[in-house]
């Protein structure tokens, strides 16, 4: 039972990937749709999705760091 934390890390990493993937996917889909409707606004749309995209990525990365910490620190 002493390696149970590894099980949790594996599960958690999977959940992080699902969450981040869904989030980035939704952003990319919305951006693609917006640009398809209004190609001249492409620059503005890209600028607007950049910030939430990086914030989302930051949360995912922090989750991964904590997962790594669980493995390293036990």
């Amino acid at each position: 039972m002493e390696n149970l934390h590894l099980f949790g890390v594996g599960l958690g990493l999977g959940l992080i990937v699902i969450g981040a993937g869904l989030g980035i996917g939704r952003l990319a889909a919305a951006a693609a749709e917006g640009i398809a409707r209004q190609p001249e606004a492409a620059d503005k749309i890209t600028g607007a999705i950049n910030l939430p995209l990086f914030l989302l990525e930051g949360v995912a990365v922090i989750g991964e760091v904590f997962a790594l910490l669980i493995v390293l620190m036990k």
Partner: protein
Amino acid sequence: MISGGEQTHGSSVVDQVGENIIHHVSNSDIQHPIVHLPHIFGIDMSVTKHVLMLWIVAVLVSVTVIIPIRRFLRKSDGVPTGMANAIESVVQFIRDSIVVPNLGPKWVNTWAPLILTFFFFILFANAIGMVPIFDLLGVFNRFVLGIPASDSHNFINGILHGGVTATGNFNVTVALATVTFFAIIIAGTKAHGFIQHWKNLVPHGLPWPVYIILIPIEIIGMFVKPFALTMRLAANMTGGHIAILAILSFMAIFAEMFQSTVTGVSLALFSIPMATAITGLEIIVVLVQAYVFTLLSAVFIGMAINVHH
């Protein structure tokens, strides 16, 4: 990779791989510094691997950015040539796409220098980790000069173990984010005055029970912003290197698992293209992370200046 076998005799490859990868991305031991310096105020000032990389980055930024700009400023005709052209395009991109939209035209000349310094420094520090010059030096050290990996006083052995990305060290990014933290406060103070800056943290005109919840949240948020910057940069720079090394380690792991050299060598057909692809991805990550840090710093500073509650 080269030194792992001699440091831990007897244990299996799988046990050594994890240790080796962590060794690659972490700072070198303070007990065996690269350059010995005296203690100042009880702090050991000796130079470790990442500090040496910071020095190299500082020299590189000076040579490729500061010197061409100085030379350009001395010119009388004001036409940029050579390196100054390249720098001008980057500076203009950062100013027009990051600083102006977030800080507003009034404060551009106040904060663009800080944002640009962040960008150039982080870009160089990130990118230098992708240059495998230190791994080559290690191979040269071992097989041409014949110095064993266990010699911890050798200069090249000290800087070895590849992947020397200074921004992959959390201490470096904490320092960078601390600059952003104080820049936010100074920007707010300069724009609105010291008292008004702290008042601006929460919207005014709400019923008082809301403030009991809101003020602690805003104070936590003040510290979470630089914390997120720290984690994002360091974790991204460390993560890519770990992924590359882990994929390359598959060769050793599988060769031991199946007790055959052929398996290990044939796995190279998978490992090497995969590691090359991730290296390509890392080059994008290097650029994107430098951009993200500067963008978010500009956004946070802009939030303190242009309060819209």
